[in-house]
């Protein structure tokens, strides 16, 4: 379902992203030769995609978790957050000093129970927030030396990830990458001792 085609380097020596060989989302209308990082920032700033996405998840949107109830408002909020998030990462990429520290500030552990752990344990599944209370998420595996590999991302309208298919898929992608890294000899099984399981 999620076959990894390749891994691409996004920020030199620090941030990588997975490229899959299949379409990820029903609302996507185009499929280009693009990794998850680029794909998500394109989608999150694409009114047509967002209109489809929020109409598909109207119930979650209207559940009041974020206090936004109209599709129109949700689209414009998403675009604005994605834009700011992307510009923040762009400035991290351009300001090569403290890149590692900046990324560690942007990426937070996935499980709430791991939030107090600093520095973040090796192989920890991480998520980056677009901004405080944002519904945008990037998911990544963190290796040592502050190296992150982005596996995917999503718009998280519900409190936990395991309640919606599109977010469950993101958890699968994290595990697929873990296996891929083992198969490629980038990490070994012993190294996986520090792998932190999700606590949803």
């Amino acid at each position, binding site marked *: 379902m999620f076959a990894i085609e390749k891994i691409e380097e996004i920020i030199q020596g620090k941030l990588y992203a997975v490229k899959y060989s299949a379409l990820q989302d029903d609302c996507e209308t185009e499929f280009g030769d693009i990794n998850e990082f680029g794909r998500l920032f394109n989608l999150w700033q694409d009114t047509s995609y967002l209109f489809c996405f929020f109409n598909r998840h109207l119930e979650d949107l209207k559940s009041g978790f974020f206090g936004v109830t109209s*599709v129109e408002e949700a689209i414009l909020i998403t675009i604005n957050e994605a834009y700011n998030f992307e510009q923040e990462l762009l400035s991290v990429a351009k300001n090569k000093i403290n890149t590692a520290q900046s990324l560690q500030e942007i990426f937070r552990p996935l499980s709430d129970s791991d939030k107090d752990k600093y520095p973040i344990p090796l192989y920890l599944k991480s998520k980056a927030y677009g901004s405080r209370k944002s519904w945008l998420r990037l998911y990544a595996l963190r290796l040592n030396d502050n190296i992150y590999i982005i596996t995917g991302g999503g718009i998280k309208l519900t409190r936990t990830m395991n309640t919606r298919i599109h977010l469950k898929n993101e958890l699968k992608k994290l595990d697929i990458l873990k296996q891929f890294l083992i198969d490629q000899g980038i990490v070994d099984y012993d190294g996986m001792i520090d792998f932190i399981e999700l606590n949803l």
Partner: protein
Amino acid sequence: MINIDKLNKIAESDHTWQKRAEKRKENRSWQKKAQIIAVKVLSALKKQKITQRQLAQKMEISPQQINKIVKGNENLTLQSIAKLEEALGIQLISFGNTLSDQKKLSVIETSDYTEMYVNFKKAKVYKKEGIVFESVSFQANYNLTNSPDFVLKNNAYEC
């Protein structure tokens, strides 16, 4: 054990996202407006049960062009906007912030004061200062470039 060299060996470098991000920054001012128009067009299409292809036919433009518009990627001309408005029977842009336009105020009235809002600008008038409103809904002339302060003029409140 982690072998970063192996990771770097298989990973291809792709910094094209930086160019896209820079372009988005460059286009930000007009694109924000194009995205609002795109949302309005998408909402109208859904409401009127019209496909993008049908809209393209109606406007005599290509479906690809409509696709670009609804993605918020088209730097629209006034002519294109007018054509879209005509085809969908909706207003996409407004030149409403002029002195001649009449807008409704929303008013919150308590025993001590009255608060009035015009496009999120607030004015608060305390009744102990001698001004008491009898009506909770009325019209006022306004100009966004003017001060939001309300003034009493000819028995109407202007801001």
